[in-house]
């Protein structure tokens, strides 16, 4: 290869990596690690970061690659560690962990400009893949900002930056990328809007939305703990009129009928294709729109209790909503609910009744005995039994605590008579069990309760931490009645997990939670406009121009035109000459001096050359002769003797002019 290029300026051999781009490359790699840190094991991230730091220190002392043995060892260790943690090298998390490790290995052998460019390209790709895990606005902005060190590295690989080991090269290195990202943002947005979306993925990409553990169909004591400490947004609800009062904000998700001694599951009853009993509506219906974020389940949530199923959904016999497709992307639906209602008040289907009284044999004898005692005391009065149970939770030394101890085989007995500590699912589970043992048909309902009312944007924000479980009992003449046993608990221990349990009215929300709630309106906008922008929205892009449905071809043509226009516009911008002609600083300074002298009566004549003029000044102002003589020498030399006067000397001359104040001699 002929030495046809001499790039990268001042350091060492042409293609060798200078210290500044190498440092920037290390920073870029650290950024990539940081972007992926949320889903990588902490020790893995820490080790990779330590390797980067060690490599940086090593190269600062002496250039050269890390020995090949070490690199090969790392090349083997990275996938080995990932397989040890995840059990497989395939999948999103293991894949991300492996590529992060490979990038670090690449850094170990980066000694040339070429290596660094490859590493930067690789880093950009890995940065993008971090967005597969979280598409939130804040995270997207952070990842976008992480492009800056990558672009700064690319810039530093080229010549023309101030050299040296100081910080002088940093600002110019970052400036180019920042300006380019800023200037090209409109073009980027245009591309984003116009790039035709794929109607169906090219390869398997199902169920790859955000990796959230939403609500599950199985409720065992302690299962909901991770949910109740998750501040992720579950759904947003906009009401047509005023929102329902806080005490009625129960959002029904699924109904759990079947108990196996340990966990509650929907059971067969929920799946039976029976039509739901008509809802006895009292008072006006509440109409509202729901945006449900992906849960990868079929359950849809509605204010207790929905009167009809929205499109593409069914209503189960227990008035739950079941989407026909798993909710892999955010969906919007509109429902009407009755907050004041009667459910199956006339009669309970005997088969449902049997299911609602079913208890597993051989579990929890203590709870059964307690319920039978209540029954014998209360006779036929179901209300009294419910009161007994709530009184037990209120006065029996029960504690609401997210850190509930694990329960033994007879979980209800253990909870009721021993630990007496738990959260909504413990109470709902125990209460429902007691009711069934006492002969009252009962079931567990899981959903969300509470939420944050954003008065500014008029919507109710429900987070995963608002998840809740409560009970419904069937009472003759009144139908299914909601009972929230958790609300009866008097003692609340605030968990320090930073999470929030919706069922105690937001007792332990952290200090920034209110701000997060208020700012959620931005997230809402982001989710609806950007993340939710899909092929359907795109098809409607040209509606204002009378095109009902834009095809991919139209979009492509529009994109091509946009690219062409953007390039043309950019070229126009780039070819603009700097507006101000390089000013003649010397002439300006000289004029300034003349103005100052004119004020005291020494005016330069039209035909008077600078030498004569200075001479005359010196004669007229003997007090200032010394500085004037110096100025004259400087000016004449700068103006006439030097073809290319050094800028320092020009600056010194300007300074001298500024500091010159003619002293007038009183005559």
């Amino acid at each position, binding site marked *: 290869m002929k030495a046809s290029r001499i790039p990268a300026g001042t350091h060492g051999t042409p293609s060798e990596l200078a210290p500044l781009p190498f440092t920037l490359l290390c920073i870029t790699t650290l950024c990539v690690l940081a972007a992926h840190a949320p889903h990588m094991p902490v020790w893995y991230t820490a080790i990779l970061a330590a390797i980067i730091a060690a490599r940086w220190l090593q190269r600062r002392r002496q250039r050269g690659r890390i020995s090949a043995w070490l690199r090969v060892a790392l090349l083997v260790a990275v996938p080995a560690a990932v397989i040890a943690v995840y059990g497989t090298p395939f999948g999103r998390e293991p894949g991300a962990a492996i590529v992060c490790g490979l990038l670090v290995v690449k850094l170990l052998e980066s000694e040339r400009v070429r290596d660094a460019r490859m590493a930067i390209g690789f880093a950009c790709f890995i940065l993008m893949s971090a*967005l597969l895990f979280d598409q939130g606005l804040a995270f997207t902005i952070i990842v976008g900002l992480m492009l800056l060190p990558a672009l700064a590295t690319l810039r530093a690989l080229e010549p023309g930056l101030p050299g040296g080991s100081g910080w002088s090269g940093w600002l110019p290195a970052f400036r180019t*990328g920042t300006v380019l990202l800023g200037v090209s943002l409109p073009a980027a947005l245009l591309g984003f809007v116009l790039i035709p979306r794929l109607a169906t993925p090219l390869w398997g990409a199902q169920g790859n939305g955000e990796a959230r553990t939403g609500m599950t169909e199985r409720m065992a004591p302690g299962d909901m703990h991770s949910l109740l400490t998750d501040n992720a947004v579950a759904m947003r609800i906009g009401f047509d009129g005023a929102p329902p009062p806080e005490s009625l904000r129960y959002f029904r998700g699924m109904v759990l009928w079947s108990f196996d001694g340990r966990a509650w599951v929907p059971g067969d009853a929920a799946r039976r294709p029976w039509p739901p009993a008509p809802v006895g509506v009292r008072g006006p219906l509440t109409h509202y729109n729901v945006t449900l974020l992906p849960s990868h389940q079929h359950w849809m949530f509605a204010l207790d209790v929905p009167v009809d199923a929205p499109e593409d959904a069914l209503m189960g016999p227990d008035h739950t909503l079941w989407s026909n497709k798993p909710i892999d992307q955010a969906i919007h639906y509109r429902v009407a609910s009755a907050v004041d209602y009667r459910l199956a008040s006339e009669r309970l289907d005997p088969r449902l009744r049997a299911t609602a009284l079913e208890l597993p044999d051989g579990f929890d004898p203590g709870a059964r005995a307690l319920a039978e005692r209540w029954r014998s005391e209360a006779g036929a009065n179901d209300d009294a039994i419910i009161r007994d149970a709530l009184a037990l939770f209120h006065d029996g030394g029960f504690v609401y605590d997210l850190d509930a101890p694990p329960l033994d085989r007879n979980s209800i007995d253990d909870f009721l008579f021993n630990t007496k500590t738990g959260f909504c699912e413990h109470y709902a589970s125990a209460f429902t069990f007691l009711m069934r043992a006492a002969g009252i048909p009962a079931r567990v309902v899981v959903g969300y309760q509470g939420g944050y009312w954003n008065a500014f944007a008029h919507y109710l924000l429900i987070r995963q931490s608002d998840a809740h479980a409560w009970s419904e009992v069937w009472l003759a003449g009144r139908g299914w009645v909601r009972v929230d046993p958790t609300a009866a608990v008097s003692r609340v221990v605030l968990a320090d997990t930073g999470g929030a349990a919706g069922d105690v009215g937001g007792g332990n929300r952290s200090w920034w939670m209110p701000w997060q709630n208020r700012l959620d309106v931005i997230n809402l906008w982001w989710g609806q406009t950007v993340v939710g922008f899909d092929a359907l929205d795109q098809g409607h892009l040209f509606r204002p121009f009378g095109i009902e449905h834009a095809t991919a071809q139209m979009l492509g043509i529009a994109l091509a035109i946009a690219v062409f226009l953007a390039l043309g516009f950019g070229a126009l911008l780039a070819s603009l000459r700097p507006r101000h002609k390089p000013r003649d600083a010397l002439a300006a300074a000289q004029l300034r001096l003349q103005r100052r002298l004119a004020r005291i009566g020494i005016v330069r004549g039209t035909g008077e050359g600078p030498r004569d003029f200075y001479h005359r000044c010196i004669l007229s102002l003997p007090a200032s002769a010394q500085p004037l003589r110096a100025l004259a020498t400087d000016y004449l030399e700068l103006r006439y003797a030097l073809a290319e006067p050094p800028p320092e000397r020009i600056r010194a001359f300007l300074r001298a002019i500024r500091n010159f104040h003619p002293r007038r001699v009183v005559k």
Partner: protein
Amino acid sequence: MDAAIRERDSLAARIRRWLPALARGRRPEALPVTLDRNRVYIVPTRAGLGFAVLLATMLIGALNYQNNAALLLTCMLGAALASSMLLTWRELHDLTLRSLHADHGFCDARLPIHMAFADDGRARPGLHVALDDIEQPCPLRAGVSRATATAPTDARGWMPIPRLRFSSTLPFGLFRAWSWITPDQYVLVYPRILRDGRPPSHHDDPRERTTAGGDEFAGLREYHVGDPIRHVAWKASARHDHLLVREFDRAAPGQPLRFDWRDLSGLDRETRISRLAGWVCDAYTAARPWTLVLEDRRTLGPGSDAAHYHLCLTALAELP
């Protein structure tokens, strides 16, 4: 394998030969010349093509996973990298080469060429210039409008300044912009210097010099083509593999040396010129006066100053 590489090289070489022929800026033109948009060319570099593939991969990935945040990031990166093309182009656009002047240079050495650009207040830190295959950085800061590059020389005499190729890959090295200027200007290249012949003695008359036994014998040295045959130390040479000649002490300072074209009979023309040039240089370095007698008996000197030195070398360079 080897043949394949050669094949490719020759193809590349052919393209290199062809492209300039198609491009503007190949006809000699008088300075100043401004690189307007019609004559600045730009193509992606190899790294640029690599990034294009990378962006395409990112795009397909983001589309496939229906991940709009990733798509937005890809669009931002793509737009920023693509618009870096405009910055690359801007490095050359509107560059005005005001004037050129060359130093005195000898044939076969690289000849420094000083370029003066119009100062438009714009910095061009990544500017490179090439007068042959070697790219030389010539960064321009705002307010600095001079730079120097070197040109190859292969023959004495008046040489047209070779075509200048200005190029830049700033800011990201993904695009390469270039443009040609062929200045309508010549520089004088001094002859190649040969230093292997002993300069003749100081005497005016060459015949007298050859019998100059009065000079003090100083030692022996290897024979070089052109040495007077009577200086050969035959006896000493017989004991060695090669011929040796006697060296005599130089004449006392103050007396002008005489370099005569005819002293170098038996040599080809270019070697004679080179030898004379070498003597002139040595004398000038030693600050000794000399006289140069050319082929046509034109006599220059005696003298020892810079003007005389340049006069002599110019005369030698301009010999037909």
